[in-house]
């Protein structure tokens, strides 16, 4: 299929900068990220949108780390099977991590990519930061 593309279309948008959303340690070492809106994103994204995303992530991580009956039973079962159960079963935390990965992908597709941003799953950084990549906006009149 013959299609003509301008050179600009074919070029990938360059990464302008990266913003790192740090962990919020005010409640201890539980996994929480700061919901404060970084100033670099002010021109790209609504504050509320960002806070919602981070809050949702925080809730998911809280669910992963919850000390509940489920995690206790999982531990007991693991003990009884001399931990061989880990070879076949996925732990609760891992299940929630998958959920988080899906959520981030969903947010990227719906909200962030259209705005030239990209969220990186914090698990890739050891749950230390949420990395937001800001792409250079080459559209006319972007002013930034």
């Amino acid at each position, binding site marked *: 299929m013959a299609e003509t593309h301008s050179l600009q279309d074919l070029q990938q948008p360059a990464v302008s900068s990266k913003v790192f959303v*740090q962990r919020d340690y005010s409640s201890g*070492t539980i996994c929480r990220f700061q919901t404060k809106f970084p100033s670099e994103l002010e021109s790209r994204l609504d504050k509320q949108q960002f806070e919602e995303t981070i809050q949702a992530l925080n809730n998911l991580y809280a669910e992963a780390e919850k000390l509940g009956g489920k995690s*206790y039973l999982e531990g007991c079962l693991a003990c009884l099977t001399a931990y061989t159960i880990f070879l076949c079963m996925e*732990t609760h935390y891992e299940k929630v991590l998958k959920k988080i990965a899906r959520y981030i992908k969903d947010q990227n597709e719906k909200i962030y*990519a259209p705005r*030239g941003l*990209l969220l*990186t799953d914090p698990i890739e950084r050891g749950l*230390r930061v949420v990395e937001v990549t800001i792409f250079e906006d080459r559209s006319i009149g972007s002013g930034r």
Partner: protein
Amino acid sequence: MPGFSGGGVGGGVGGPASAPPRPFRPSRYVPVSAATTFLVGSTTLFFCFTCPWLSEYFSSVIPIYNAVIFLFTLANFCMATFMDPGVFPRAEEDEDKEDDFRAPLYKTVEIKGIQVRMKWCSTCRFYRPPRCSHCSVCDNCVEDFDHHCPWVNNCIGRRNYRYFFLFLLSLTTHIIDVFGFGLVYVLHHRQQLDTPHAAVTMAVMCVAGLFFVPVAGLTGFHIVLVARGRTTNEQVTGKFRGGVNPFTNGCLRNISHVLCSSQAPRYMGRWRSQQAVEVQPPFLRPPLTEAQLEAKILDNGIQNDRHSTRSKSSLDQMESQSADAEPPPPPKPELRYPGLPRADTEESSLLTEAPPTPSMYKYRPPFNSPGRNHTALTHPNKMIRGESLDSPSPSILQSSRQPSYRSEPSSLDGATVVGGGVGVRRGGGERGEGPGGPGGTAGGVLGGMSGYSLTGRSYTSYPSSLVLSTGGSRSSSLRSAHTAHNPLTTLQSEGTTDTSYKSLANQTPRNGSLSYDSLLTPSESPEFESAAHELSPQKPRAPFPSATITGQPEVVSPSSPLQGYTSPFLSAQIAQQREGQLLQGSATFSSPHRAYLRAVSPPPSSGPPETQHLLQHNQDFSSSRAPRNPSSSSSSPGARSLEPPVSPPPRGLSLGKSLSYTGEAGPQHKPRPAGGGTVLGGGGVGGGQQAPQSTSRPVLANHTSSKPGGGVKKVTGVGGTTYEISV
């Protein structure tokens, strides 16, 4: 239409983040091999020689029970040995783009009201999260680092602590069982002790008995640790001695967290998801507000304040979530341009102190110098790793933001108090003790533990949040009072040096670890520094009545919950309240203190020199009190002067900076942390009679002075303007 795939940014499908290959060191495997040999060998012998008779004589439940316990022990041993303890992958390049020469070595974060310091790891290129430590044996940062156990040849961290703990419990049980049943066998075969079975049983009993003492000791030690919610690292370095552990949630919750929480995920060796999200312009943009447009126009690209701006933004970031209920601080000059672009990197948002610039060095409090020299002489290698505790302090003054005192004073406090403690600790040869692993020197654990207690490490610990919140200034003044007696040279041993930067840390990577072996050798300073004091915070100085003038803002704490810091507005209220209280309680003032209050009003022109002069006497605030009183100018007690720089004693008293710092809002100005802090304390204190104010200190907002008749209050605001408020 081809679009940019996000996967490219993420590096595509990646394998695990790899650490550089390490040389093979067979000596590392000796202890674990010995432990395995003893465990498996002895138990096999037990099963072969002792158990047949036992199952015949008593029942076959005994060998089955022993087998179950042994398998449990072995499973936990294997998990503790082979499981990733929670290693952090190395940070990528783009996380650390900022200028290393400007980044402090430590960042402070507040956890449940307690200041915790995070240290820059030069190997892993990030600021270590709380409770994380870098193991030099494994050359990795480990989350919730407990220790490096040579007997399993692995770090014990967040992911495998549970298995290690259960291993200890089960091993203790197993040793007891083997020894007990062996004893039963021997007692029944007293006449046949020359048979090989009996001989082997006795040999196994000897091995069991030998290992029982250290293993049981270590087990007991870890039971206590689990109950208290501490790691071995924290216990042995005495981080929480006399203070409050911010990581504990109560005994029951601590235990359930160790035993019942879901298995933590590993960070290494994860497959990176290929992000198939296309990012392609044109991009949506939110509409700009009027303010933003105006800010863009005003923005002239101020660059030289970039770092301090960044730190402030990060401070706001840290504070905004916890300080929503507090009145907003006065607008800070550097934040007049919200549209100012700030190059953000990972650490910048963590910065709670502005990294010092060369121009700030001259603002450093003079008391740093002796300490620094002392440090240089005695602990040259520590200097590099020294915290930049005091170096950012001038910048804090410059930034003069409300939350700044939170991190800064605590770190300064840490410097002051820790210095004393650290000096002692380091001088005493740290890590000279420490629990040995199982099977270590006989009684090594107990010896280690007793050694630990005997060393008398006067290390700082986390003060109670209560102290910080309600009586923080009190404690700070207590701290300052006490630290005044410490040789101040040691106060700065943690390094108020210019060298305490990431850049230098990166050049000379020092990886601290806390393996039981490395406990014998000095290792790097622990990451934690805390605004701690060794005093009991519950005992304010007795002689002072409630309406004290000693610069202890606790007087007003009931009326104004300080919660660790005050805003400039609160400080105005404090000053007003103090004035009221002082007026009421003026009769209770002791004469020396009254003399203080008189000595308040040198003319404004002498303000700055007085400031410097006072700063130099910061250390001897208590001693400077006396000489100052008689020599001070004789303003009447009732005189209310606007200008005088703070009377030194109150300033010195609130040397503990945290609360006296309130509202260090203001532009670049000389006043030093202690000076500034004490001004407020002095202001509050002297508010009753005079309110020392300083026109040379525009940074100090809301110092009030009131006339004896209490008609008009004068408040110094930001920028040096003075307001009169009629009461």
